[in-house]
């Protein structure tokens, strides 16, 4: 299981402060934070603790298995962000 950030993310980054395993990227200290459209959760590192979902001010984070229908694509979008990083 993992949590997933969906398209309504506003890059508030409060989730990066509460994540105990730093699996939400890009964090504000990273260069690409300035240009990223949204933040992403690495499904391989996420420990499913729900801290990010509780902290998110706009409820843009869901457990992967409870994603609203219109956001289901974001499970893959989150995972793909980290796959691309590994390649680059």
């Amino acid at each position, binding site marked *: 299981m993992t949590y997933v950030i969906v398209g309504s993310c506003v890059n508030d980054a*409060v989730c990066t*402060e*509460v*994540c*105990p*395993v730093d699996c939400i990227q890009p964090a504000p200290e990273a260069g690409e934070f300035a240009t990223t459209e949204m933040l992403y959760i690495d499904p391989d590192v996420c*420990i*499913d*603790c*729900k*801290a990010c979902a*509780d902290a998110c001010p706009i409820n843009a984070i869901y457990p992967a*298995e409870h994603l609203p229908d219109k956001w289901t694509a974001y499970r893959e979008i989150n995972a793909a962000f980290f796959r691309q990083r590994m390649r680059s």
Partner: protein
Amino acid sequence: MSKNIYTHCNYCVSLCGLEVEVDDAGEEVIEIRPDRENPFSWVDFCRKGKTAAEIRNHPQRITTPMRRVGDRYVPASYEEAIADIAQRLNRIIERDGADAVGSYHGNPLGHNFGDSNLHAGLLAAIGTGNRFWVGSLDQNSLHVVQEEMFGCELMSVPTDVDDCECFLLMGMDPAVSRFGWIEIIPGGWKRVLEARDRGADLIVVDPRVTSSSKEARTHVLIEPGEDWAFLLALIKIIVDEGWNREPEAVPVNGLDAFFELVGEADLDDLSSRCGVSVEQLRDVAERFAKARTAACVSHTGLAHSGTGTVGEWLSQLLNIITNRMDMPGGKRYERGYVDLPKAWSMMAPKSKHRSRLRNLPTVAGFHSVAELADEILTPGAGQIRAMLICSGNPVVSGPDGDRLDKALSELELLVAVDIVQRESHRHAHWLIPGTHWLEREGLHLAFGSIMEKPFAQYGNRCVKPKAGVREEWRFFVDLALKMKRPLFGFRGINGVVRLSRALAKIPGLRKFEFGPAWFEWLMVAAGRRVKLSEVKRRPHGYMYDNKRYGDLARSLRTTSKKIECAPSILMDECRRLLAAPMPKMDPEFPFCMVSRRNRESMNSWMNENARLLQQQRSNQVEMHVEDMTDLGLEDGDPVRVSSPVGSIELTVTAGTGGRRGIVTIPHGWGSRIFDVNAPGRYSRWGENRNRLVDGQRIDPLSQTPLLNMTRVRVESLEPAARQAPTRRAVGQ
């Protein structure tokens, strides 16, 4: 180069497995991660554990004994500190008797068995009955109920979460607390949600809307402090409808007498007391009683309510009469790896001592913090003149902190053992360095029996104590030796300790030195369930057996060898509550203050961690949005909250719903951390809401103050700005 050391976190009882990366010298932590190979707890981890090295490397950390000279502190050696403290304590004991020396200790000490045990050894050497502890602020109700029903003050029955099909959760917010109390269930909340997604029923009872209640199938909005009435109503409905079942796994005594009491209660009366309709009570009772498996789980919220001991007892009885006790999917007893009553008595030795002023007995061997200030301030034979405070902060954790602060200022001798100088140590004559759990080691002998599965993990030392710092237990032993009073009160033992220390100087014999390891080895060997070497061999922890049911019946310590369902003190107190008139609202103090926990905060000792709580490093007053509108308040406005014993100022924020008339303020905030090297310099975040709590009003059985049921008044601090209440919406 670096290496990984595996241990478990020791902030809360989730005991999350940790992978701690340290430098080669074993002096500094590089990073702390969750230990994904821990078979018990890897699913749980939070930022408190992740940032533990920040607290260990606290900028105000005390690394040498410090003696007060005027208004400042000067460093001293351990030898100087121990000699001076021993001489002054002996003088006070010879003049006024042993009870003139009091003690208080907090959770961080309790989390290390060796330190707790040798602390008890020192107190027995001193011979004082004036022992106080943090348990009287949260867990005493459970100790009273377990002693009365099971015959042992610690005989916890953790929730069998994975097989449970109906959860009735009371006085807890596990989405924040992770389900831990006197039951260790790693990932407990996550597993409850998984069970719910498989079809389990989830009923959350809480006067507030919380992250947990939002996940429930039913949220029961109860009147605060009336959990006992709610539980008694459920039991009454179940008994009247004939839905109760004979307990299969445990022998019981006194059920008929208890049912007689149930017969005396009136359902409509109970319903109006707890503010839950008869219809909803029936619905919950039926779902709970008819579920294939179910568990009623009650935690701290009840303990703080003034009626929590009766509530806790009724919670156990609800489980007993529906056959949930020591049954799959109900509440399961884990007998652990040692003889639990023995291990518990080493941490919390029983005592027949009664308090001088209120003539109250001890609970688990300790008196209530609610009595401490009076026992120091009131002159007469047996008055406390010296205190030893170990890893504790009772001015912030306990009731009416202003009065306790005044009391501590009048002591002849105050010795504080801790990693930093906190609010309660303000008047200390001696500050003795403490250790952080990253610097300690040990197998906790009492935790094995409150775990939900047969699991043992040796807490490995990750880094050395800061240079010059001795472990707490060494200080306790050294002090008893210097006072020439026998550790544990056993004549001759000090000689054994000295001999073992002399022998340990011989190369190869160091490991035989007297210390906590002696007790670990003896207790685990006598427990005959696991070998200590087998536990130590598995750094990620050892799941040494399969879960089994039925051990509770064999482990009961009551004279009847049965669970006592109708102990007279609980029956009497329940009848007293039934006969008491319903509490009336006090127009002068119209709100009820309750507590809550922040996930990134742990009682009174982590709020200063800069890597936690980055956005909101303070507590706030949370109120119902309509109550705020009535008072003309908006989110973020400053308010004064007052009770008959004190007042504090904080900003207000709108809650997410729930009952009106409730003011929620997290506890543990507002403790100053002093800089011992710069008199007058300190840091502090938030406000100590327990300054509003009266030390005179307590649950008569657990002696716990009403941390959750204090009546308060809320006033805007900007009266000129908005005189008339406005009707605009307040942002959530």
